């Protein structure tokens, strides 16, 4: 197999959305799977389709069942009920060593008694490949993760980042139908983690393989994945591409779990073609809604901090569907590229607004304790009914 030619270029990637095609056959299908460990529910009636060539991220807090779902697909756990299908076939009776699925373990699980090359060759030997085929494939994998120089080392002589790459090469060596990655970057330090994210994504696009990654780091999921499945307590709360999850979270929990969000609680006061008006403690706010709402419903308006503009004076009435509320700057966090402003409203609630540091240079800077106006267009707010 030619490892350098991608199956799908950048242009192809932009249109890649098999989940939107009702005729598309999923590569992996979890069908109402449930799993409990001595009474404790790890997976709760979960269904999910993953498509060929997809980079899918399972995102959720620790203990929500992400690893259990991966282990179900790898064959290390059996579901109490429900089915796991690969290429339309129920793989429940297939033992782990006969599944065309490979896993990169959270602990890497490198064989300490084998060299780097020996670790990568391990799976190939099980397939009964000839010595020459194995050495060609091992060399290919070593080149892929840039570890050619360290082929003869033992795992304990490697750095954390190098070990991570050996584990990746070992799990890729057999060209699995699905590669499962359990928190592959969790053990790396911040800088390395960020670089490796992009490498991982680039590698997946180049090989055209199906990757399922487990992570509790939302930034990581957003960076690498075609789609994210947000999990909580053994269930999938929302499954969608990163931008959709971020911009159209299904409920307050997802909105808060993925990035920062300001939530304004209130009652629906008006509904027209321009959207919804909600009476909240901060006054009447306008937002868009994709959910059906009725008058008097309690709803929440979610506004991302970077969509809020801070202005020193009340903005003009140019945009009648916009929102403007007054507050006082309570705290400023300078993060380099952006600054985070905490603005206290008269009723005491705090609103977060992030501003790119450069935009402030030309304007009169806003300082601590300044009276300011928070301003955002109606389409920056999203109405959540749950």
């Amino acid at each position, binding site marked *: 197999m030619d490892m350098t030619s991608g199956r799908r270029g950048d242009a192809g990637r932009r249109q890649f959305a098999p989940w939107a095609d009702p005729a598309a056959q999923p590569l992996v299908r979890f069908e109402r799977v449930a799993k409990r460990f001595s009474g404790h529910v790890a997976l709760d009636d979960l269904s999910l389709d993953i498509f060929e060539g997809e980079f899918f991220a399972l995102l959720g807090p620790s203990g929500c069942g992400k690893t259990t779902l991966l282990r179900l697909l790898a064959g*290390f756990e059996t579901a109490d009920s429900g089915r796991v299908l690969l290429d339309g076939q129920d793989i429940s009776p297939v033992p782990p060593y006969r599944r065309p699925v*490979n896993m990169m373990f959270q602990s890497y699980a490198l*064989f*300490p*008694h084998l*060299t780097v090359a020996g670790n990568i060759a391990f*799976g190939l030997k099980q397939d009964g490949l000839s010595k020459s085929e194995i050495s060609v494939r091992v060399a290919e994998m070593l080149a892929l993760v840039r570890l050619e120089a360290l082929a003869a080392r033992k795992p*304990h002589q490697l750095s954390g980042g190098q070990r991570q790459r050996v584990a990746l090469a*070992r799990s890729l060596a057999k060209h699995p139908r699905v590669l499962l990655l359990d928190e592959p970057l969790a053990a790396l330090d911040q800088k390395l983690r960020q670089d490796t994210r992009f490498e991982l994504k680039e590698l997946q696009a180049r090989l055209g393989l199906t990757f399922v990654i487990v992570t509790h780091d939302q930034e990581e999921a957003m960076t690498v994945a075609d789609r994210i499945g947000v999990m909580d307590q053994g269930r999938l709360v929302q499954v969608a591409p990163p931008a959709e999850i971020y911009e159209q979270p299904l409920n307050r929990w997802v909105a808060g779990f993925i990035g920062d969000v300001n939530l304004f609680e209130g009652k629906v006061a008006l509904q027209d073609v321009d959207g919804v008006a909600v009476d909240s403690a901060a006054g009447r706010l306008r937002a868009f809604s994709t959910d059906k709402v009725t008058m008097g419903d309690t709803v929440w308006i979610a506004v991302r901090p970077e969509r809020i503009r801070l202005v020193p004076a009340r903005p003009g009435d140019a945009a009648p569907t916009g929102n403007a509320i007054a507050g006082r700057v309570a705290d400023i966090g300078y993060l380099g590229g952006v600054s985070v402003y905490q603005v206290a409203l008269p009723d005491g609630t705090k609103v977060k607004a992030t501003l790119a540091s450069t935009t402030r240079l030309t304007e009169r800077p806003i300082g601590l304790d300044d009276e300011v106006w928070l301003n955002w267009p109606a389409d920056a707010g999203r109405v959540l009914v749950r």
Partner: protein
Amino acid sequence: MHKRASLFCLASLGFGLAFLYLPMVILVIYSFNASRLVTVWGGWSTRWYAELLRDEAMLDAAWTSLRVALLSAGAATVLGTLAALALTRIGRFRGRLPFSAMVYAPLVMPEVITGLSLLLLFVAADIDRGFWTLSVAHTTLTMCFVTIIVQASLIGFDGSLEEAAMDLGCPPLRTFLTVTLPLIAPALASGFMLAFALSLDDLVIASFTSGPGATTLPIQIYSQVRLGVKPEINAICTIMIAVVAAAVIAASLIAKWRDLRSAGTGLPAA
């Protein structure tokens, strides 16, 4: 202050070592005694070693002991490892607690009782006592030591290594042979050595379970000493010390060599 503490330490070390090794040193020196009287020094000589070579009974006993020790240590290593695997791997199975208690019981059981019960068993089953009954008895005696050593290393074993092997297409038995076994091999080796030494040394159980055709070295030495200590005994004991010391040194050299090899720049495993 510090100096006094270290003087104390040195003194205790010296005393401890002397306590442990003085009897052996005396035995070794007297094995080279030219005099026929054990307690009188008659100058250096190796005549008792030459004498030993002509002592058919002693040589037979040594050969029996060696064969029994190798066979029973091998069997105890296999059985003890299986028991350790059962105790660590099969989660919490019904009857696990009694099982582990039963595995450990021979550790604290007085040897006289073990020996006597084995004797009763062999008599009841009408089995002629000899080489085979002795080997079985020593396997029974030493197996639990192997279990304890192997179990300790299995508890510290990272289970995800076996899962990784299976994930890569390796069936369970081959996973055990190619991943688990190489990694717990040091524990198996020390278990084997301990079992070997215990078997070589045993007198009580051997005297219950061996027959006329299978006299072990400790039995032979003991029966000769009852007639008076001959310098020849010192010689055979010195040889035993040398064999055991050589085994211990070999074991530690093997361990060191493994470390060196894994730290060095060995070639990729073919």
